[in-house]
């Protein structure tokens, strides 16, 4: 019966591809074109790159929720890992000298690259996520080469770093509400500065969150049950 099930699922998927493909090929022109509206309002958005404008201004509320998703996943990992999490330990095994010197050389370069990416996001592809990812990679590299211990679970400073970017974002979102505006509504002359503020906070927090997503994964060998 298992082969019958497999055949059914595969047949269903093939049929789906055929139907969907045909449905897409006969599509008429869409009645609404957002690209034009984005270009029209780009001047008021505070940044010059249209994707950044959409991410942090027009649809900034989506981005706020997406940071919440990341934090949430991290919380889930911390909860699920139970006693297995790799906390506060340095990586064991022979630290290779070459790897360590390479890591020492690369780490400052990565921080600089992250800073550049953050700044560049306003007029080219770049921004907080890319910069945060580079930072996270730097942290993971330092851990893997034995130079840095894994972030310990309950440290207050670490928790602050993780949520700081998010809280800054929430604060900027909430401020317009007090003067009668809508949430996340930037005054047009301050839009660029506010976006940079949010992105800076996010870069730091994202670096920590993404690194922690990797580093807090349950450890390989079995631990005793808590």
């Amino acid at each position, binding site marked *: 019966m298992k082969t019958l099930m497999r055949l059914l699922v595969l047949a269903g998927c093939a049929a789906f591809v055929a139907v969907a493909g045909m449905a897409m090929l006969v599509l008429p022109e869409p009645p609404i074109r957002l690209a034009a509206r984005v270009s029209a309002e780009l001047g008021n958005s505070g940044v010059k790159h249209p994707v950044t404008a959409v991410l942090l201004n027009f649809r900034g509320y989506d981005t706020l929720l997406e940071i919440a998703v990341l934090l949430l996943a991290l919380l*889930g990992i911390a909860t699920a890992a139970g006693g297995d999490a790799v906390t506060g330990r340095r990586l064991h095994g022979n630290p290779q000298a070459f790897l360590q010197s390479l890591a020492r050389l690369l780490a400052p370069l990565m921080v600089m690259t992250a800073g550049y990416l953050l700044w560049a996001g306003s007029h080219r592809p770049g921004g907080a996520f890319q910069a945060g990812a580079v930072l996270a990679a730097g942290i993971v590299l330092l851990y893997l080469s034995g130079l840095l211990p894994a972030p310990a679970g309950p440290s207050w400073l670490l928790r602050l770093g993780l949520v700081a970017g998010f809280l800054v974002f929430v604060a900027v979102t909430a401020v317009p509400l007090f003067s009668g505006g809508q949430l996340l509504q930037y005054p047009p002359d301050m839009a660029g500065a506010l976006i940079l503020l949010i992105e800076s906070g996010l870069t730091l927090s994202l670096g920590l969150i993404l690194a922690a997503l990797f580093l807090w994964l349950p450890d390989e060998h079995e631990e005793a049950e808590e």
Partner: protein
Amino acid sequence: MIDPLAWLILLPLTWAAIAFLLGPTRGGRIAQAGIALQLVLALWIATEVAGGSSRQHAAGGWRAPLGIELLADGLSAIMLLLAQAVALPLALYARAYFTDHPAGIRHFWPLAGFLLAAMNALFLSADVFNLYVTLELVGLAAVGLVASDSTAKSVAAALRYLFATLVGSGAYLLGVALLYGTYGTVSLSELAPLVEDAAPYATLLAAGLMVAGLMLKTALFPFHFWLPPAHGGAPSPVSALLSALVIKASFYLVVRLWLGLLMPVAPPAAAQLVGMLGTAAIVWGSVMALRQPRLKMLIAYSTVAQIGYLFLFFPLATHTAPDAAQSALQGAAMQAVSHGLAKAAMFGAAGVVILSTGHDQVARLGGITSRLPLTVFTLALSGVTLMGLPPSGGFIAKWLLIDGAISSGQWWWVIAMIAGGLLTAAYVFKILRHAFLEKEQSATFRRLPRMLEWPAFALALASLAIGLRASDLLRVLGAP
């Protein structure tokens, strides 16, 4: 001026992040304060909506289709009220529960806060892509909560739930992609006038994908496989949140999409199919509930069954007379609210039994009536709502649904509902029969914190009271 829409989302996001910083004990206190404030905001919105006006909010100051719009109408207002009204007693319950049984407390408050924020954001959003993000937020929060005591059973249940929820939102996302490709916007208000019955095939495909994905997330038969282990295996405060609220979120979304967008392209046959799956859920869920030796698994299968009633809404409201459709919507709303209150109460009561006796075997419930009278009363009251006996909210819900069925000439659903009621009575009486036995079957009865039993009792009482105040609730719904 304070804008309740925005604050209902920002407030829980803020206290969730702060609760993460402060740790479990202080986190619990600010959670309670936050939820209390949110309840006030939800009541404010509900009163405004009942008076006839709906509220809108454009995030970022950008109107659709460029920006994301939030909307609070009758349906959203009721769901918001349900969420905060269930969350507050559950927060009190959870504080007492975890004081006694700390497994799972570590990040409970931040997770619960994000869950609540996500649900509020879902109920208020009027943008289908934003709804995808909120769906994922709800799903991941729920999965994190299920895995919170980190045992093999709960981790396996959480992973199964995670996979199911990811497939569901993946299908939903593909639907969003097709809609954007067809119409060039993801805003509900802009999409609604564009979808007409001569729509391109892609729209029909998108509709099917989105509804199917959401049915998977709402555990409608035959997609219910993930629910019993997840709801039955999690710590009791988590089970209560999941069965009472999380399930209703994806159901709300199907209704919102169906009514607000997809009605022109919905074939009546599809609606009938959904109704039949609902009936299958009612029968299958109730029969399986009867066979469960453990109380929490029984309650979890009961959720599978009661969700079936919710899906009877679709055949009753699609291409039928306006007053039949109106009854159907009112019935579904009442069912969602009453079930939410009653199920939260039931899981709360089950948690009390587990903490007190150390087990939840139905056959060994004998003797708890003299030890835990309030809890048994809670079980009985919630059972009344589930069975649909007057004057409970469950009775009003089923009455309205039956009314809808008769006015639209679809009397076969009435048979389904009556059968469902009988089966529900069977498993409720099974619980009560064992509970009322004189002879004590369990060896130990521990002393419990005082606050533990009262929140569940309050929820059960509310599920009854809502039947008496049904007209007020329905006035909120009926507003445009």
